[in-house]
């Protein structure tokens, strides 16, 4: 017979054995890794052989093959250095193949991308792609139906900005400006008219306006190429095939001229800048937005140029970026600066009023008295103190419910959603919209963002704000209209930058130049309300008020300063010209500018980010939008939302008959002769040292056909104008010679017969001698003449 002690010990032993067995079973359990399926394969080909400009896009051509049943899969591209992924949701046909272009938003240092195909979180296929950042290098796209070979300078022969050419078939040209953003220059070779779609052309135009340099090859195929291009990109009509004069080419490249140079006769538009012979120029140029178009008379792939010793220097100089921007490093178009400003604008968070807490505090003080001495006294009187175990929780929960209800009823917004949108008109029916989206939340949160358009999204460029750093959200940045999922860290202002080409009818805006004044006429043809519409140029911003759809407004351009009078506003940034009073009022002692005004300031700066020191190089129509044409729907109920959107369009300048061009409209042209600029009470000028100082003044492109009859030229300087030893000359475009003027400055020069000196809307002035003592030289003209 077993004793109770033995039974007890056995029971304890049995329990220990069972427990150990359970433990062993638990420890033996392992997780099975997710296995990839072999039915789906992918082949990834990065554009530009994987080379990319920092903080730009890299299009990836992806071919998916599916041996299994149809499936909806996510194709994503990730970098270990970039927080969010770019992705696309695609329906993969069963037993079929599918091609797509995935846009990867790059940083400045990623060297490998992982492209995955996933379904419900399971990786079906993966490919790693080697990529390489190219900071301070010119990535050149050679777009042609036939191989286009240029004799480019070798990397080791250049001190800076080496060239990296990549051949691109016309049909492979990205259909989004984002896809072209890595390219500094695009050279178009033979281009059959049918090869480019409207999307290609809109992207190309938007890319140029953002700062790209488009070079259109000439030769026998020029007429066909031109037929494929929209009007703003066509600079000259193509004429007969001739042997071009190669001498200017030799001079341009500092080399002996090449041999026979076959090309076509270019008939440049009046607002372009031809180079070479006046009858058959070698090329002509026009600035478009922040970018440039160069149209060649000769085929860039000519065999003559392949063997010519001056070819490397020619291409080094001809295929130059329009501007070099300094952001974090080198940037060869204005997109980076604009993206930086749009991200920074998110830092101006709206003011959210704190709820009144006094009633709640009063309730809680009363509660404290009730729950402690009040309840104890009551129960003591009843001699039922044990009831406290029920009464106290009941009272706490009851008062708690009332207090919670009171709190929730007057609760403030917890999260903030800010959208800052810049919409720039590209052509008559298309605009480029860039929207920075910022989210601020007190807890780690995932947001779903519906995108009302075919946009691509990229991480926000890091920026600093008063609240703290602005950075990119994590998550999946889906393209082609799919919803984004943004993972936002608590108390970090994070988000994404979205961009798309959107359908937007162009604003009908005109500046009518007359004999005595300039009239403004704007009709809102965009189909959406426009707020506080203004036309800005040359230091003025004429307000036209709000415009409902189809509503029109007119105004007269304000009288400008007469020659000799100070014109400081001409050197004022556009944002100050437009928002001056509001900014000044907000920055007065004891006050702060409204956050919306600060966002507007940032947006105006972004609109002219590619220009010089925040000024518009051409007349602009500016209007604030109630809603973006690229709508973003952030699923964040109860969040405080803030949206500020700016539409930037270009008015046409028209007229007929006698016309007077106001002072300040003819602006310094800096494109081909970079020289430091300076500012002073007479606006923007040029540093005259070293002499000679050549100043080219140009009218807006629409006034290129203006036939000047007389001109008043006003020359001023910051330091006293040297009394002697200065020669002043004007360039006679008809004879190609400099004509000396009798001028002992400073002050005005009346030119009675201005026709020879103003051609294509340009006037060129040369000051030599002791002019370098003047520190900063300003030139202003008032032109009178006829507009055809």
């Amino acid at each position: 017979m077993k004793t109770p002690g033995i039974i007890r010990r056995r029971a304890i032993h049995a329990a220990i054995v069972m427990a150990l067995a359970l433990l062993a079973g638990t420890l033996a359990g392992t997780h099975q890794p997710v296995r990839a399926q072999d039915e789906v394969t992918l082949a990834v080909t990065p554009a530009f052989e994987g080379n990319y400009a920092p903080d730009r896009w890299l299009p990836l051509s992806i071919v998916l093959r599916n041996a299994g049943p149809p499936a909806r899969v996510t194709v994503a591209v990730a970098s270990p250095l970039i927080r969010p992924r770019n992705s696309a949701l695609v329906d993969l046909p069963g037993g079929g193949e599918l091609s797509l272009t995935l846009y990867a938003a790059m940083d400045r240092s990623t060297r490998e991308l992982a492209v995955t195909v996933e379904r419900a979180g399971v990786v079906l296929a993966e490919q790693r792609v080697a990529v390489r950042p190219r900071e301070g290098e010119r990535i050149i796209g050679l777009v042609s139906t036939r191989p286009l070979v240029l004799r480019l300078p070798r990397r080791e022969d250049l001190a800076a900005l080496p060239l990296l050419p990549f051949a691109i078939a016309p049909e492979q040209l990205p259909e989004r400006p984002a896809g072209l953003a890595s390219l500094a220059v695009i050279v178009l070779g033979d281009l059959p008219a049918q090869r480019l779609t409207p999307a290609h052309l809109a992207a190309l135009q938007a890319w140029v306006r953002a700062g790209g340099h488009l070079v259109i090859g000439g030769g026998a195929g020029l007429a066909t190429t031109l037929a494929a291009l929209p009007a703003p990109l066509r600079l000259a009509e193509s004429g007969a095939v001739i042997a071009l004069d190669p001498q200017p080419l030799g001079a341009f490249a500092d080399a002996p001229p090449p041999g026979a140079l076959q090309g076509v006769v270019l008939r440049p538009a009046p607002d372009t800048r031809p180079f070479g012979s006046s009858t058959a120029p070698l090329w002509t140029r026009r600035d478009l937005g922040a970018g440039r178009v160069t149209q060649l008379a000769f085929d860039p792939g000519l065999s003559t140029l392949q063997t010519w010793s001056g070819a490397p220097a020619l291409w080094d100089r001809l295929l130059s970026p329009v501007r070099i921007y300094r952001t974090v490093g080198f940037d060869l178009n204005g997109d980076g600066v604009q993206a930086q400003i749009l991200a920074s604008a998110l830092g101006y968070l709206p003011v959210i009023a704190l709820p009144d807490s006094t009633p709640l505090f009063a309730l809680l003080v009363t509660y404290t008295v009730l729950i402690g001495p009040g309840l104890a006294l009551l129960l003591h009187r009843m001699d039922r103190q044990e009831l406290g175990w029920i009464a106290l929780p009941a009272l706490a929960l009851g008062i708690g419910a009332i207090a919670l209800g009171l709190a929730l009823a007057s609760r403030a917004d917890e999260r903030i959603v800010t959208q800052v949108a810049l919409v720039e008109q590209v052509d008559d029916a298309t605009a480029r919209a860039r929207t920075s989206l910022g989210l601020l939340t007190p807890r780690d949160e995932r947001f779903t963002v519906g995108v009302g358009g075919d946009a691509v999204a990229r991480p926000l460029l890091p920026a600093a704000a008063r609240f703290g750093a602005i950075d990119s959200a994590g998550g999946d940045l889906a393209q082609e209209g799919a919803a984004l999922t943004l993972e936002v860290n608590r108390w970090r202002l994070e988000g994404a930058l979205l961009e798309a080409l959107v359908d937007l009818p162009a604003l009908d805006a005109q500046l009518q130049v007359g004999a005595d004044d300039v009239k403004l006429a704007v009709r809102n043809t965009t189909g959406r309300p426009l707020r506080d519409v203004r036309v800005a140029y040359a230091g003025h911003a004429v307000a036209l008020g709000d415009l409902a759809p189809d509503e029109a407004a007119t105004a007269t351009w304000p009288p400008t300063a007469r020659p000799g009078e100070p014109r400081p506003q001409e050197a004022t940034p556009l944002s100050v010209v437009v928002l001056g009073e509001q900014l000044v009022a907000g920055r007065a002692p004891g006050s702060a500018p409204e956050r919306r005004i600060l966002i507007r300031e940032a947006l105006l700066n972004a609109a002219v980010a590619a220009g010089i020191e925040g000024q518009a190089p051409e007349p602009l129509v500016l209007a604030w939008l109630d809603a973006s044409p690229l709508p973003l729907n952030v699923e964040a109920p109860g969040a405080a939302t803030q949206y500020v959107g700016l539409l930037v369009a270009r008015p046409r300048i028209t007229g007929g008959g006698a016309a007077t061009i106001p002072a300040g409209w003819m602006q310094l042209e800096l494109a081909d002769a970079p020289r430091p600029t300076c500012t002073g009470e007479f606006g923007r000028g040029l540093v005259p040292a070293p002499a000679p100082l050549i100043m080219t003044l140009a009218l807006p492109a629409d006034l290129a056909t203006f036939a000047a009859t007389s001109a008043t030229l006003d020359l001023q300087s910051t330091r006293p104008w040297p009394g002697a030893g200065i020669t002043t000359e004007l360039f006679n475009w008809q004879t190609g010679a400099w004509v000396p003027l009798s001028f002992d400055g400073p002050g005005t020069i009346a030119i009675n017969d201005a026709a020879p000196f103003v051609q294509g809307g340009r006037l060129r002035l040369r000051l030599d001698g002791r002019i370098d003592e003047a520190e900063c030289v300003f030139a202003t003209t008032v032109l009178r003449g006829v507009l055809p």
Partner: protein
Amino acid sequence: MAGLTSVLLKELRATLRGSRAALLITVYVGLALIGGRLVFNAVTGQLGMGPPLFAAQVGQAIFVGLVLALQALSVFLAPATTVNGVSAEYERRTVELLAATPLTPAWLLLGKLLTGIAFVLLLLIAALPLFSLVYLFGGVGVADLARVLAVMLGSAIAGATLGLFCSALTRQTYAATLLCYALLVALVGGTLLAANFWSLTNAMLPAPPAYVAANPLSAIGAALARTRPPEVVSPETLRPVAALSLLTQGVLVEAQGGRVVLPLYRVSLVIYGAASLLLFWLSLHLVRPRRRWALTRDDLVMLIISVAFLLVVLLARPWWQAGLGG
């Protein structure tokens, strides 16, 4: 079970009798409310003094202040509810009487412990309406509140068990109180001191979170890390928020894609669970008048409970190991 019920009823009645309980509740709720108001004043005093201030920031700052105040009070109040549980019976010489009843030492201890925990729970419930202040300003979710309440309750149970253990060990209320609070101070202060010493001797790097895993203030600090208001709020005027950094050595980790919060409180809960079981088990032996260390049926029950607890801990390994960055 009848024994347990009778002990429980007696103890529950006795706990609320007299003015001590009412005073404790008033002090507990009142101090927490004063703490909340002070934090509110400190935060809103910064309006217009630099970075923008959002309602959720105010809510989170009040939440941090309230919870830290309540936890500090709970940590030192919880042992007090049980520290005389066994010793009082010896001091009143009622142990022999109890030994003559069918009441087993296990039921006696469990009754004392549950009463102590119930009183701490009552205090927490009494303080609940104060959290409506937090919901007025936002920034804190129900999950955040549940997390901190779980940690407060876990540490309170451990504290009550410690009090009971000290009482059973010394059998004198005075000695038990001294021992209990000495241990508590060593735990709270000692671990923080050790962590900061590690920091000082390691180029001011944050100490490994394991150093403060058993510290109840660090545990609540870790539970609060997800509701920590941004550092743009000046820490000089927000001492509770500044204290979080001190309490939560190494809990906030900078990582790719932002700052990661290690849920150290999960490790703390495991430690408190294990410590409570161990201390209660030891108390079961200590409370016996004779043959203290002989194995009984109570030990088997405790073994089964301990193994079950260990199993749960093992199964939940990924959950709590995340607290150590694993």
